[in-house]
């Protein structure tokens, strides 16, 4: 029962997704060549980004993960030249950023939008006026702006809140406004600077789902930085791991998860309790086995060490699928969590659940996990 972490199904899905999106060959959208950025401060030179070379393809969701101070924030700000590189070349959608005039740069920025951790909305403007802001900047006529705002409000699920002010919105709603605003000019690239770090886990998931749907619907390339591995796992196709200004590891998310090479990557991969984030797998299993019953078993200490499950399965006429599980150490001892899907007659499943329960194993029926 210990540390049964079966990720096969999940990985297969991730791979499939990744392949689907990454195989439009020769579609490099963003290219960094030996990019470095340092700041001269009172306490000497700080090397924020150190000799980074990366390519990001059109249509992919590319994640950059690192702890705070790793330089990821500076790196993403180089991509729309909120920071200028100290050395190296940055090419975004065919433009070499370092060689642009201010006017050309403003043009590129309309094509490379940014979403911020703290939303950075104008609180003096309503939702609709905030979304319309980038359109005003380029002189889109009012009627056209209104139409576009309406589209975007619906796209990000804020219909009915057009006339609210940011102060009247929740964090998740504010970020939806931030995303809608970023999409207003029909950009090719969306840069997400810790876009979910100020949000609670549930809201984070809803924003991530929104990003995925935008990526699919609009074919938008998304570059995001985060310190949360689960963000990477949930929506990214490829990932770069940053440490002390350098990119120490890059690859398909599925590969990096299965075979992390650098110690820091291993740490990040360890962050992921497989149990917390299985909603995709549930859906998948529910589709495949509509009759199946997904249950979550919780073991504590000694129950985690006995073959309870195998006994129960021997005495009842049911089959099972292991979805995932883990064992964590806590103040009260080892806590085991296991997700399984029971397949068989409904009545038989019920009896099996009852007899597992009688062994002082907690059982939660997870059929309505969404």
């Amino acid at each position, binding site marked *: 029962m210990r540390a049964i972490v079966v990720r096969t199904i999940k990985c297969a899905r991730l791979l499939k997704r990744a392949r689907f999106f990454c195989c439009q060959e020769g579609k490099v959208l963003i290219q960094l060549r030996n990019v470095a950025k340092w700041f001269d401060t009172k306490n000497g030179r700080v090397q924020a980004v150190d000799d980074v070379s990366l390519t990001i393809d059109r249509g992919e969701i590319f994640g950059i993960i690192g702890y705070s101070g790793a330089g990821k924030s500076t790196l993403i700000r180089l991509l729309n030249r909120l920071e200028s590189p100290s050395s190296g070349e940055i090419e975004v959608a065919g433009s070499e950023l370092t060689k642009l005039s201010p006017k050309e740069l403003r043009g590129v920025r309309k094509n490379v939008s940014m979403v911020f951790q703290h939303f*950075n909305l104008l609180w003096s403007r309503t939702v609709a006026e905030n979304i319309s802001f980038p359109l005003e900047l380029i002189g889109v006529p009012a009627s056209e702006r209104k139409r576009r705002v309406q589209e975007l409000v619906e796209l990000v699920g804020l219909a009915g809140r057009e006339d609210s002010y940011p102060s009247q919105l929740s964090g998740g709603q504010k970020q939806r406004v931030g995303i809608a605003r970023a999409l207003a000019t029909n950009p090719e690239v969306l840069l997400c600077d810790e876009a979910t770090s100020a949000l609670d886990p549930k809201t984070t998931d809803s924003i991530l789902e929104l990003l995925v749907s935008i990526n699919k619907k609009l074919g938008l390339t998304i570059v995001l930085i985060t310190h949360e591995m689960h963000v990477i796992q949930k929506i990214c196709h490829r990932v770069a791991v940053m440490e002390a200004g350098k990119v120490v590891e890059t690859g398909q998310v599925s590969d990096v998860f299965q075979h992390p090479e650098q110690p820091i990557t291993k740490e990040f991969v360890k962050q992921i309790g497989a149990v917390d984030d299985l909603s995709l797998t549930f859906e998948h299993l529910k589709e495949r086995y509509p009759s199946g019953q997904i249950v979550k078993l919780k073991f504590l200490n000694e129950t985690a060490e006995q073959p309870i499950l195998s006994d129960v399965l021997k005495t009842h006429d049911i089959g099972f699928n292991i979805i995932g599980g883990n064992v964590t150490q806590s103040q009260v001892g080892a806590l085991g969590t296991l997700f399984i899907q029971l397949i068989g007659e409904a009545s038989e499943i019920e009896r099996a659940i009852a007899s597992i329960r009688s062994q002082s194993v907690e059982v939660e029926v997870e059929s309505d996990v969404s």
Partner: protein
Amino acid sequence: MFPNVDWQIMMEQTWETLYMTLVAGVATFVIGLALGLILYITNESLLLKNRPIYVFVSAIVNVFRSIPFIILIILLIPFTLFLLGTMLGSTAALPALIIGAAPFYARMVELALREVDRGVIEAAESMGATKWQIIYKVLIPEALPAIVSGLTVTIVAIVGYTAMAGVVGGGGLGNLAFLEGFQRSQNDVTFVATVLILIIVFVIQFIGDRLVTKIDKRSA
């Protein structure tokens, strides 16, 4: 009840005070806003940071803000004479009022602009806004409540200044209270003039507060 009060004159002088306050207020708003913007913009790396200009404007503002108003009026006598040909009356008080109040207001505008979240300016920059667009579409609207409440404080100060200007020859309630009330020992005139000044201040404060509440969207 007030034997020495000539209500006709009292009303005339109230209008004089209002006239000085209003004209000086409008001019202070325009000049102070411009100076405040210059101070902010030349000290902000995201916009047009320019140390020499900042230091220069800042020094001028500090000097004029530090001179006590009563002394400023006296120092400005030659300037006023040159400009208007006279030292007496309400209009003659205007240059001193404006020069005294505008630097004060400029600092308030600078403070108000500094309160605007840098992240919002950066967001506008990331959307391809020009510096000018950042100023009039982001900075001013976002700082507006503080700009307006600063203006209220400044105009209230201007009312006080008009009274001082009255002492050295400007018109208005201050002049009346000093010449008719104090110098001729007619306490009732001083009293009524003071009450009228207080009413003017309260009304200005009330209007300013209402305006700020109306435009401030920061709290739900």
